[in-house]
């Protein structure tokens, strides 16, 4: 439905552009000059001229990471070396893998992110169903409690949580990185909205088909809100895969560290600023998620895009 505006808009700018050029082209009036064709094309697609340079700007840090990871140490500090590496130097990658156990970090990252996701899916599904379809005292109050949690992420309350986990003896364990995130007010809210969209006649039908609440939840609601579950899953995985502060505070040995912590450690140990090795490490840490992102672009974009509309 927005096409009409856009087309008329494009058409009108195109005509003004062409009338401007006709004066210059009266001699070659019959054959449109290549110049006017280019100009018309430009005026219709003006967005490209603004967006393309910006995109380059946005991509440049990532490009810089990869380029640097392929340079030699000397090149980085040589002002005359140019932007591109003289020779592709892949030696930084094995060098990085030799100094830090990235394989172990990767396993830990997968374990932590996966456990958080599974635990969250369970808790938010149950809670969202209660908020969407059941009546009980204190419902509004409890829902507000869930929503307020969104405002108090671990960054705001990490100190006392650290003390609590220390008392529980969980510091420097994988569970320490998981338990604070098991409940998700945001996920509960998202899923509750999705559940409320399910027509109530479907749950009526399921009741007549012999389903109790839990069976209705399992057989009817969950299959129908799959897109929301996927969207939440993606957001959760991105958040916790990249999480830095909390794992930093509660881990102090390689056996439980995650990828971001490993990378931070590498930076610290390379106090001489061995940028080539560090950027090789960064490429390694960044690439799993970016790769998944590139492959499932649509899904990722849709998930984040619609966090605001619903």
């Amino acid at each position, binding site marked *: 439905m*927005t096409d009409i505006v856009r087309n008329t808009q494009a058409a009108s700018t195109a005509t003004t552009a062409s009338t401007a050029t006709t004066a210059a082209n009266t001699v070659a009036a019959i054959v449109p000059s290549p110049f006017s064709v280019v100009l018309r094309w430009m005026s219709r697609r003006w967005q490209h001229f603004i967006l393309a340079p910006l995109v380059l700007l946005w991509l440049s840090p990532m490009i810089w990471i990869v380029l640097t990871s392929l340079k030699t140490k000397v090149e980085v500090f040589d002002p005359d070396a140019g932007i591109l590496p003289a020779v592709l130097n892949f030696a930084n990658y094995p060098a990085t893998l030799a100094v830090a156990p990235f394989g172990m970090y990767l396993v830990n990252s997968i374990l932590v992110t996966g456990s958080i996701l599974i635990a969250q899916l369970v808790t938010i599904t*149950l809670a969202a169903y209660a908020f969407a379809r059941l009546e009980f005292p204190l419902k509004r109050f409890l829902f507000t409690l869930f929503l307020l949690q969104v405002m108090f992420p671990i960054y705001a*309350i990490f100190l006392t949580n650290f003390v609590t986990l220390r008392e529980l003896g969980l510091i420097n364990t994988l569970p320490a990185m998981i338990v604070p995130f098991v409940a998700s007010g945001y996920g509960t809210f998202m899923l509750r909205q999705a559940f409320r969209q399910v027509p109530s006649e479907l749950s009526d039908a399921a009741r007549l088909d012999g389903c109790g609440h839990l069976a209705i939840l399992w057989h009817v609601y969950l299959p129908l809100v799959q897109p929301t579950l996927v969207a939440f899953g993606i957001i959760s995985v991105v958040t916790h895969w990249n999480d830095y*502060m909390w794992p930093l505070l509660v881990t102090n040995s390689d056996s439980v560290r995650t990828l*971001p912590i490993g990378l931070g450690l590498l930076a610290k140990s390379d106090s001489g600023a061995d940028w080539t090795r560090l950027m090789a490490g960064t490429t390694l840490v960044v690439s799993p998620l970016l790769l998944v992102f590139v492959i499932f672009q649509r899904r990722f974009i849709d998930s984040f895009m619609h966090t605001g509309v619903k």
Partner: protein
Amino acid sequence: MSHRFATVWRKEVFLAYALLLPSLIFLAAFTYWPILRSFWFSLHDVALGDPRIFWLGAENYLRLLDDGLFWKVLGNTAFYTLTTIPLSIIVALLLAVAMDSKLRGMAIYRSAFFYPVMIPSVAAGMVWVFLYAPGYGPINEALNFLGLPRLDWLYDSKWALPAIILMSIWKYSGYFMLILLAALKLVPSDLYEAARLDGVGPVSRLLHITVPLISPTLYFVIVIGLLHSYQIFDYVYVMTQGGPADSTNVLTFYIYQNGFQYQDIGYASTIANTLLIFVLGLIGLVALTLGRRVHYMGER
């Protein structure tokens, strides 16, 4: 209410609480209990790893009032929040408006602007340390190329915080752009047509039609922006450690310093409480000023 109806109802209530229980346990243990406990800590002298605890009353709060560094940190935090969010949103809105079209290549642009969200904050921070490096960093090379003076960026107390703000805009405006783009697609096109017929220019159209119509989403983006502004801890930790001269020290980092470096849990909790109040205050402010004026396109 018949007896039988009462039992049905009681069953449903029981089920509801059973379903909420897993969430509530974790919510209580790791969100609400810490808040209460933090308040209790703030009234005491508590050292990290020391089971002894001494009553101080309001002493920590009085100390806070006298702590010049705290006020500086609070100012830095406010400055970061109040510049990063509006700037990112303006950039995001302009990007979204430019991208609200069906031209080819928009999907690529979208991903290109969005990908920084996928990058771990620690990696982003490190790269930007490199980019900002005074001697050999490409940003200074670029400034030099344009005939502008080189800057010390993260080593200059005037420029360190703006440098982090710039990086934050790079990291988050793509996300905000995406959310705003979704909202723009819902604005009915006949409104633009009507405005064009009335001779309203493109800038006016943006300010008087687009912005009011997507204001609920803008409001939402502001809240998301507030939440993401917490992440400055990661950047400060990786990039500057609060320096130079505490010019990039912010509340979360100051809590960390007091709690973990000086092991003073009581005082750190006091600062944490002010952070909570700061956040609640900002959210309240946003809700009262913008939330009320938000123009809703029907009930959602």
